[in-house]
């Protein structure tokens, strides 16, 4: 008794679930165009695009936006280097305690952000490191490394180790093997990992709250802005920017890692 077609009840439940998840996002978009700026009134009394202009001219938006972009870029860059190195080591070596270390690497993303944030904050305090842009970047790098590591280690496992040996066997030195064999096969996984890491860093709030000094990243700025009853739709305009800045990389990452049919070296 196995039916290929889902029952009506299941379909309704699935559609209902998707709507529950995604309608609020649509409402965020909708309120960026509302004419009412004190409260979120439904339905909006009128529609306007003036808030985009207002947001553009608001001077206090730009520093948080630049800071978020800067933090995400540097944290991703650090994570790409460290995450690749760690995944290369973990995929190729086998040693006592390998599984445990693998767990430790993944831990920053499994731990609640509050814990990561607290531990980083106390660590920075103990070491007398003043809170700055760099402490935010370090905080973000802890979980960005995990994203890059996860992507890269999966690709390393799918690569048959034989092709690296084949390259050396044919006379290539380590650099040539890296350049002509490893990088082309690892490239999309690294790019995908980097995109995801960037997206994650760009809208991170919890760890940032603990590791930031006086600066605000864009999500923190939004949080502060929501409390104030003035020009609320401006926050929604910024939300659309954040949505685009994170959703597009995630979408690209999804397409880059989709489809295992071209798995390296798996075919016999």
């Amino acid at each position, binding site marked *: 008794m196995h039916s290929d077609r889902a029952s009506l009840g299941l379909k309704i439940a699935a559609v209902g679930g998707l709507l529950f998840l995604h309608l609020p996002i649509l409402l965020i978009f909708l309120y960026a165009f509302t004419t009412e700026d004190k409260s979120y009134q439904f339905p909006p009394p009128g529609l306007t695009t003036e808030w985009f202009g207002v947001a553009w001219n608001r001077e206090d938006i730009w520093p948080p936006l630049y800071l978020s972009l800067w933090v995400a870029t540097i944290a991703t860059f650090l994570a790409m280097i460290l995450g690749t190195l760690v995944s290369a080591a973990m995929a190729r070596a086998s040693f006592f305690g390998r599984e445990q270390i693998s767990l430790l690497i993944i831990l920053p993303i499994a731990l609640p952000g509050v814990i990561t944030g607290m531990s980083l904050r106390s660590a920075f305090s103990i070491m007398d490191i003043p809170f700055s842009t760099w402490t935010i970047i370090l905080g973000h790098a802890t979980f960005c490394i995990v994203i890059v590591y996860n992507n890269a280690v999966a690709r390393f496992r799918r690569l048959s180790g034989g092709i690296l040996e084949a390259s050396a066997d*044919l006379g290539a030195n380590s650099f040539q093997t890296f350049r002509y064999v490893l990088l082309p096969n690892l490239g999309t996984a690294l790019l995908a990992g980097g995109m995801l890491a960037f997206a994650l860093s760009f809208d991170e709030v919890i760890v940032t709250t603990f590791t930031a000094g006086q600066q605000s990243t864009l999500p923190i700025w939004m949080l502060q802005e929501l409390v104030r009853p003035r020009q609320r739709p401006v926050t929604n305009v910024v939300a659309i920017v954040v949505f685009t800045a994170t959703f597009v990389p995630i979408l690209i990452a999804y397409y880059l890692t989709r489809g295992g049919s071209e798995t390296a070296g798996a075919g016999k």
Partner: protein
Amino acid sequence: MTAAVEFLNVSRHFGPASAPVKAVDGVDLTIAEGSFFAMLGPSGSGKTTCLRLISGFEKPTGGTIRIFGQDVGDIPPNRRNVNTVFQDYALFPHMNVRDNVGYGLMVKGVDRRTRDARAEEMLALVKLEGYGDRKPAQLSGGQRQRVALARALVNEPKVLLLDEPLGALDLKLREAMQDELKALQSRLGITFVFVTHDQGEALSMADSLAVFNEGRIAQIGTPAAVYAHPRTRFVADFVGSSNVLPPEVTRAFGGPMKWASLRPEMLRVTAADGVALAGTVTGIRYLGAGSRLSVALNGTEVAALLPAGQPVPEPGATVGLAFDPAALHVMEGEG
């Protein structure tokens, strides 16, 4: 004749020195230039490790390896004039066939036009003209095997190493590739070192072969010599699954009190009366070109090959066994 590859008391041990895993243990070996040399043995016998010692992916923990007289102890794989056809072919999945074949030339800095021309030559050699633009994923197993071969030969190695290259192919293709490899080897005159666990493959292709057992060489010689005169019980059983007779049975068969080997095809099945050796048929296996009879004889199972066309006895029947005394080979080695 020059030695292409020489092993002088070579060992490769893994793990702690107190309890090492002896993958290769005290191997002495000489492979003549231009020969087709097979390393034969069950899995875990050390044959693949020996191959990797030649290619340089493993370093010996003891002894010396020479390739054309040169001690290669400190020479990394990419600077040895030796190329490998890997077991899983290890083709570069992101490159087309032409770039795969030309890879060895590219890393040496040969310009594209020259290496494309060379790659086409190599593809013609392995009968894959016109496949240059395909990706490895678009090829069949047999075609990938040929690409791997062409890729390994493009650097004109002095020694070509083949690690169970036919293992993934079906029987018909495997037989065709055996003939082709053999023909290619005699045409190019390159030394081929071929690792296999298939004794039939080793016997039919090799000029000489080494039988590996537990990290050591059990016997080395021409296929005919190894087959006819196995030195140890292991070799007798592994190469052509011979009847290995314990000393007392050898005695009963008219030999000395020693371990002996008697090939199943050397035994003639006769009527039970009037012969010295008679036993009960306990099993019959039909092989197509004949049948393999198991005969219980004084408590020992003996296999006899019955050619097609002869009457096959019923299981449980009593039969006589006869053989030419010269076929009883007494083994001097242990194990």
